[in-house]
């Protein structure tokens, strides 16, 4: 038995969102009489952090503390329309919609504050701590709570805003097949190092090094958790997850967590991640989105690393021990490639 070390790399361009129907998302923002704001969305947060990020975007745009914003993603029956949480679109599409809604709500809030302070709204600014004051005269100030109460009970105004983000649908050129399905792309490069056992066909992850360019990281710790967890899922797709063997009938395939394999805590490897921030012109505060693309570069990088280790090119995922062994046998043994 020999274990062969191999190294492979892969680079990807990942389009943020999709082209279908222009991929719209809507958001509604309104203030409560307490001076707190509610953002209504229909995209759900599955744990990626969309609630946190849209909360940050809303608070920053309104000019209020982040604690004063609540994001409600509960109900697609009563919420404004959204295409959903997928295609790495949450931060970019929903974030842009929230930003537009918050901008409109801020306009109403500043008008209401101007009426209370008897000044022009253009002369007002927010301090980000829950107060609105006259530029250059911070003592002429009113809290967002008092503005909300005045709007609700005195002025008869709703401090609210509507937002939508819609990219015009890109039609396919019938002559050339050309189209522009996305307005911004995230990028990544990942180097994977593996050990391949030429007797068992098993592939062990040794380490990963990656660089991701995903616009501005609005919440760096959430970006990191996406990249760490997503790379694990990439390893899982590259080496483990399959509903086979499904022969002679599907009933023989894995049916539960004992038979459907995924890498466990003992199968992971060190992963060094660099995040490069190049703000996207059409992203909310320059953000793109680290979603699906976290997993994508891992698969080709692992396949390349296996080729580098034993000289077999496997293009059918996942790369199970059976496939590795068959391929090594077919070429008459392991043929380690040059390491660069």
């Amino acid at each position, binding site marked *: 038995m020999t274990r062969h070390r191999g190294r492979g790399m892969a680079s990807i361009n990942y389009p943020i969102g999709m082209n279908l129907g222009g991929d719209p998302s809507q958001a509604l923002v309104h203030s409560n009489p307490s001076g707190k704001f509610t953002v209504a969305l229909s995209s759900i947060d*599955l*744990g*990626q*952090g969309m609630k946190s990020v849209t909360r940050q975007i809303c608070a920053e745009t309104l000019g209020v503390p982040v604690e004063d914003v609540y994001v409600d993603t509960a109900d697609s029956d009563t919420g404004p329309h959204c295409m959903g949480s997928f295609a790495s679109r949450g931060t970019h599409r929903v974030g842009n919609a929230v930003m537009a809604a918050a901008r409109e709500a801020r306009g109403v809030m500043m008008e209401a504050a101007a009426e209370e302070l008897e000044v022009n709204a253009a002369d007002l600014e927010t301090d980000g701590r829950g107060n609105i004051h006259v530029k250059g005269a911070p003592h002429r100030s009113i809290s967002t709570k008092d503005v909300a109460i005045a709007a609700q009970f005195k002025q008869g105004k709703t401090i609210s805003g509507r937002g939508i983000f819609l990219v015009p649908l890109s039609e396919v050129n019938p002559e050339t097949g050309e189209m522009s399905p996305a307005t911004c792309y995230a990028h990544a490069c990942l180097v994977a190092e593996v050990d391949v056992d030429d007797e068992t066909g098993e592939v062990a992850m040794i380490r990963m090094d990656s660089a991701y360019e995903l616009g501005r990281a609005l919440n760096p*710790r*959430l970006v*990191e*958790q996406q990249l*760490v*967890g*997503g*790379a*694990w*899922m990439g390893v899982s797709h590259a080496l483990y997850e399959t509903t086979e063997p499904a022969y002679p009938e599907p009933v023989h395939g894995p049916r*539960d*967590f*004992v038979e459907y394999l*995924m890498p*466990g*805590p*003992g199968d*992971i490897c060190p*992963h060094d991640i660099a995040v490069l921030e190049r703000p996207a012109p059409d992203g909310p505060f320059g953000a793109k989105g680290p979603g699906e693309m976290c997993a994508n570069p891992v698969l080709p990088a692992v396949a390349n690393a296996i080729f580098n280790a034993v000289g077999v090119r496997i293009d059918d995922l996942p790369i199970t021990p059976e496939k590795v062994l068959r391929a090594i046998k077919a070429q008459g043994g392991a043929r380690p490639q040059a390491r660069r």
Partner: protein
Amino acid sequence: MSKIPLQFRHNGHDVAIFVDGGTNLLVALRELIGDMTPKFGCGQGGCGTCSVLVDGELHLSCLTLAETVAGRSIETLDGMKQGPNLHPLQRAFADNFAAQCGYCTPGMLMAAKALLDRNPRPSRDEVIEAISGNICRCTGYEPIINAILAAAGGRASA
């Protein structure tokens, strides 16, 4: 089928319920006691999210017959925090971003507590072994391992 009276300690409190023969501990906790912190994942011991402690030992509540815990002491995630104060493990999970969707978290925390209660300064390999019966789909495990090691380190220095 007649009901069977059953008494045990649940997070430090005596409880008495009537269960059907064959009821598992997960159902007894969730449906009869109302403690929703142990989660139903696979129902066959493959995922670990239903984990609870029985007399300090880690058990899969979906595979434990409720009748077998008569007179014993059950700990669930619901009993972990003391009043408003998070348990050091819970704090460390939050600080290390060790939860995303959160469905595995109750089982992970119970597995981690079982480990730290008997081995306050575990090695990385011991942490990995302790949570290897628990499946997480989101985090890639690294943040969970780091959280448990951080809680162990913090506890030792406190």
